[in-house]
């Protein structure tokens, strides 16, 4: 979002609809979020009640969570490690590139950005297909580093685009002043550019985390044993067979959704920034 659109939005910040609209909005929200309510409701039911889940969790039970944590606890940790690893790796790769694309005069910068846009059109299954054979040769199947590298295919292009869009607005004078003071490119980048880009950085990190955490395709194709199994795949193997204990399946789904819910509550403005950037992407 450019400064002008932000300003325009702010100027218009007066309330037009009344509480009637609020009531309608709540109804719409209730309908759209019903599946998420249902996920929570089923997860809190006593296990074994496969027939006709009650509409409300009157008979509160945490058995589902106990089972889920017992069976999927390790997978949750795997997901967490992979997602955090992907955040660190993606930012390490994407931040300097975003800066170079925003501030250096590079001849093939346009071509590289074009390549990033094109990369968004490549189906994940095509990447998985090729990576499986390559990973097989390199011994990267069933490994955390293998998943971190593959999962970053979502985070890196996104992070480059969103952070570049921010860094392009850093005034050249700021960078030149730092250079006059004798700082090299790297020093300028680390001590001036990165702190200035804090917000864009947080947004990029949040979304890279969510992308990797939610990854299913690479978990499905690039792991073949139970050694390294992200929770998304754990959930898939649950529902791949006949389910007779939905409360623990839904407890797992809730646990897998917690990062998204927490981030939406805690870091709402960064989430909003990232969603808007989705269009530029």
């Amino acid at each position, binding site marked *: *979002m450019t400064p002008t659109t932000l300003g325009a939005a702010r100027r218009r910040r*007066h309330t037009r*609809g*009344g*509480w009637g*609209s*609020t009531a309608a*909005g709540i109804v*719409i929200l209730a309908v*759209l979020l019903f*599946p998420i309510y*249902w*996920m929570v409701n089923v997860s809190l039911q006593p296990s074994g009640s496969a027939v006709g889940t009650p509409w409300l969790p009157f008979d509160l039970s945490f058995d589902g969570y106990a089972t889920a944590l017992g069976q999927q606890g390790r997978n949750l940790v795997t997901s967490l490690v992979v997602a955090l690893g992907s955040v660190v790796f993606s930012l390490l790769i994407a931040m*300097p*590139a975003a800066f*170079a694309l925003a501030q*250096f005069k590079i001849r093939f910068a346009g071509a*590289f950005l074009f*390549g990033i*846009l094109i*990369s968004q*059109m*490549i*189906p*994940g*299954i*095509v*990447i*998985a*297909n*090729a*990576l*499986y*054979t390559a990973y097989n040769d390199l011994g990267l199947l069933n490994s955390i580093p293998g998943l971190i590298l593959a999962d970053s295919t979502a985070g*890196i*292009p996104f992070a480059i685009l969103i952070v570049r869009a921010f860094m392009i607005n850093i005034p050249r004078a700021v960078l030149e002043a730092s250079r006059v003071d004798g700082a090299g*490119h*790297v020093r300028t980048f680390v001590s001036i550019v990165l702190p200035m880009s804090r917000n864009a950085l947080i947004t990029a990190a949040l979304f890279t985390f*969510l992308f990797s955490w*939610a990854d*299913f*395709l690479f978990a*499905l*194709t690039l792991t073949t044993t139970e050694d390294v199994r992200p929770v*998304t795949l754990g*959930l*898939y193997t649950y*529902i791949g067979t006949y389910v007779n204990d939905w409360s623990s399946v*839904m407890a797992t*789904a*809730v646990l*897998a*959704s917690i990062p*998204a819910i927490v981030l*939406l509550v805690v870091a709402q403005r960064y*989430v*909003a920034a990232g969603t*808007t950037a*989705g*269009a530029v992407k």
Partner: protein
Amino acid sequence: MTVADDRTVAGPRFWHSLRFQTRAAQVLFLAPAVIYMVAFFGYPIVKNFVMAFQEYSTSTFYTGEAPWVGLANYSEVVSSPVFGKAMLNTVLFTAGSIAGQFVIGLALAMFFRRRFPLSGVLRSLILLPWLIPLIASGAVWRWILDKDNGALNRFLAAIGVASDHPGWLTSTSLALVAVILVNIWVGIPFNLTILYGGLQDIPEDLYEAAALDGAGGWQRFRYVTWPLLRPVVSVVLVLGVVYTIKVLDVILALTGGGPANASQTIATQSYHLSFQQFDFGQGAALGNILIAISLVFAIFYLRANRRAVDE
């Protein structure tokens, strides 16, 4: 080196070292990203292209041999009875999902433009379905759509509609519809957010002027909102197509492409060939067909994107 260059900086030697420094910095800053993009996007495209001409199966992993078969993979994939079905399903899935997401997303964006108490909070909560892992929402939808005990069928029976408990995920005539409905649900937040952003950029004065000229609600939409929103609309639609055409998670979680290929798309069939039948050559061929379709839309996307940037 020209005279003008010399005059702008201290001297030739300094200029030289600065130039070297800058070049080194450029390489240092950009090289990791370029290498990554080549390895994780460039290589797979090339590899897939080559694999599609090979008999690449489980034995390849032991013997290392993948004999050239020319266009055999393509002809086998295209002549398979599943191909026509998967192609049609891909078109229906994409068109159905996009139409639903867009219409509902636009309606909600117009609704939230009214700025009522709590509108900001409600609007950000609507993002939830988009942020939680697709496999988690897939799992809960699977239970909601369950034939015998699912919440949807219980609700429908309770209000007296469809009391025969339709098998949303198990009937060949309903599976694709169910998968599309869930994918619409997944895509609404994205459409809402982008279209809402587009609506916010339309100057309020234009609506006031139109109202003064006596334009009604529909006319304001037709002559003010729609023309000014069009660049954003084309971005949303084309991005929607590009993303929807390769959807895998939702379908695998809900139906696995079944029953009897009723919800099989090109993307899921490509997965099926490579990772369930272990015929990577055929999977690659189908993947390449998917890329070709995406590329056609990529051209639309870039044109739409440029137009959106220009305006």
